[in-house]
C-alpha cells in the first residue's frame, strides 16, 4: 500500500556552468496523511531543496514524488508553503498581504475577514494589520508570512524554518499554537528546521538529514503524548530523544 506522500530515490544535482553541486539525495521517504514530519539537518544539507521538490516547484534530477499514488509533475497548488525568505510584498499592508494568498487562489476575500483577524491575533499582530511589511521587525514579518501561508486552511503544509527569526519566547508561543491547530485540523505537515528541540517537540516523526549531499541518516518516531507542553519537555523521554539526535549529528562533526 502506498502512503499519502511517497518519495522514491529523489536526487537533486544543481548544474551551474560546468560545475555540479550534488545538493540532495538519493532518498526515500513515506508520509502518512495527517502526519507531522520534521526534516532536520545542518544548513546546506539540502532541506530547502527537498521541500521545493515535494511542492513541485523544483524539478528533481532523478527519482519521483507521488501524492496519493499520482506522480507529481507540476507545482502543487492545494498546499500552504512558507519559504525561508518571506513572500510579503512591499506594496501591500500586512492584512492585504494575507489577502494576496486568497486573491491569487480566486477565493472571496470578504468571506475570510474574521479568519484574517483571528490568525493575526494568534500571532499578536492584530494591531499591525494596516502596516506595511518594511515597518515590521524581521520576526514580525515572519509571523505575518506564517499567517499568509495558513489563511486558506491548507490540508498539506510545508514550512521552511518558519520560526528561525523569532525570539525564544515568541517561538515557544507559536510552536504551542501551531501544535494546537495541528491537533484539531490534522493537516499533513512537513516542517524544515535545524532546531533539534523544535523538531522533537512538534513532530510525530523526525527525519535526520546528513551533511551535504543530504541523505537520510535515520528516522526517529517521537512517541510522546500531545499536547507537548512544558511537562512533556521536562520528561526523561523527551530529553533522551534530544540526546540521541545530538549524538547522531555529533558523529558527523556538525555539533
Amino acid at each position, binding site marked *: 500500500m502506498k502512503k499519502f506522500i511517497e518519495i522514491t530515490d529523489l536526487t537533486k544535482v544543481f548544474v551551474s556552468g560546468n560545475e555540479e553541486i550534488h545538493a540532495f539525495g538519493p532518498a526515500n521517504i513515506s508520509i502518512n496523511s495527517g502526519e507531522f514530519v520534521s526534516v532536520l539537518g545542518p544548513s546546506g544539507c539540502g532541506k530547502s531543496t527537498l521541500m521545493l521538490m515535494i511542492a513541485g516547484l523544483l524539478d528533481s534530477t532523478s527519482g519521483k514524488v507521488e501524492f496519493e499514488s499520482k506522480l507529481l509533475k507540476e507545482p502543487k497548488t492545494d498546499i500552504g*508553503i512558507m519559504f525561508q525568505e518571506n513572500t510579503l510584498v512591499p506594496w501591500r499592508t500586512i492584512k492585504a498581504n494575507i489577502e494576496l494568498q486568497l486573491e*491569487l*487562489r480566486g477565493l472571496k476575500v470578504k468571506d475570510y475577514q474574521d479568519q484574517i483577524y483571528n490568525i493575526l491575533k494568534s500571532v499578536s499582530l492584530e494591531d499591525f494589520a494596516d502596516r*506595511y511589511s518594511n515597518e515590521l521587525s524581521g520576526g514580525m514579518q515572519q509571523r505575518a508570512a506564517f499567517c499568509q501561508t495558513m489563511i486558506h486552511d491548507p490540508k498539506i503544509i510545508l514550512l521552511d524554518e518558519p520560526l528561525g527569526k523569532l525570539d525564544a519566547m515568541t517561538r515557544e508561543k507559536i510552536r504551542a499554537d501551531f501544535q494546537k491547530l495541528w491537533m484539531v485540523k490534522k493537516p499533513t505537515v512537513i516542517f524544515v528546521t535545524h532546531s533539534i528541540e523544535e523538531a522533537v517537540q512538534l513532530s510525530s516523526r523526525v527525519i535526520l538529514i546528513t551533511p551535504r549531499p543530504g541523505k537520510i541518516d535515520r528516522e526517529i518516531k517521537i512517541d510522546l503524548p500531545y499536547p507537548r507542553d512544558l511537562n512533556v519537555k521536562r520528561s526523561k523521554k523527551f530529553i533522551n530523544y534530544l540526546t540521541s539526535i545530538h549524538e547522531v549529528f555529533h558523529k558527523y562533526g556538525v555539533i
Partner: protein
Amino acid sequence: MQKFFKWVASGWMLVLFFVGFFLFWEYSIPFFEIPRYILPAPSEIVAKGSADLDKLIYYTGVTGLETVLGYFIAIVLGLGFGIAISFSSILRRTLYPFFVSIEMTPKIAFAPLFISWFGFGLMPKVIIVVLVCFFPIVLNAILAFNSLSNELTLFYKSTGANTLITFFKIRLPAALPQCFVGFKYAAINATVGATIAEFIGSDQGLGFYISIVTGNMRPDLAFAGIFFLTCLGLSVFGFVTMMEKILIPWHISMKRINT
C-alpha cells in the same frame, strides 16, 4: 505645517545659493567689463525676454507639445515592448540584443535623416523624442519585469494563479519602481531631443528660437529661451516624480526609511 517649516529649513540654503549665484553674475558683468554680446546680465535677460514674451510662450507650447507627445508615445511603446520581451523567450533572444546594440549608437545622430525624410513639421521632432526616450524606458522595463524575486515566483506558482492575475497582482507592482527609473531618465532626454531636433531643422519652437537669436548676436534672448526650456524640462520631470508618488507611494516611503 511642521512639514512646511522643515521644508523651509532645508530649502533656505538652496535659495541662498541661487540668490548669491545670480547676484554674482549680475555684478561681475560690469566688474569684469564683459561685453553684453558675450554674456548679458540677468536683469537684461529678464528685461529683453519680457519684450519677447508672447513668442517665447508660444514656442514653449510648440516644443512642449513635441516633448510631451514623444515622451508618452515612448512610454507606451517602451512598456509594451518591455513586457513583450520579458514574457517571450524568442523576443528575448532577437529583439532584446538588437535594442541593446542600438542603445550604443547616439540616437540623435538620426535627427538630420528624419528631418530630410519627414520635413520641418511636428512629426520628425516627435519621432526623435520617441527615439531618445524609448531605449531607457524599454531597457529598464525589461530589467524590471525580469527581476522578480525567486520566492515570489515560487509563491504564485504554488497558488495556481493564472498569468493575468499574477501580472496585475505581483509582476506589475513589483516592476513599477524600476520602470520609473527609466521614465525619469527618459524625461531628461525628452527636452534634449526636441531642442536638438529643432536646431537641425524647424521654423518654430524654443530650439529654433535659440539658434536664430544666437545667430543674431542676441545672447540675452538665447538665455531667455534657455530659461523657458529649463522650465519645460522641470515640469516634465516634476510630473513623472508626482506620478511616482501617486502610483508607488510604498516605494517612496521605503526609500525614506532606508536612508
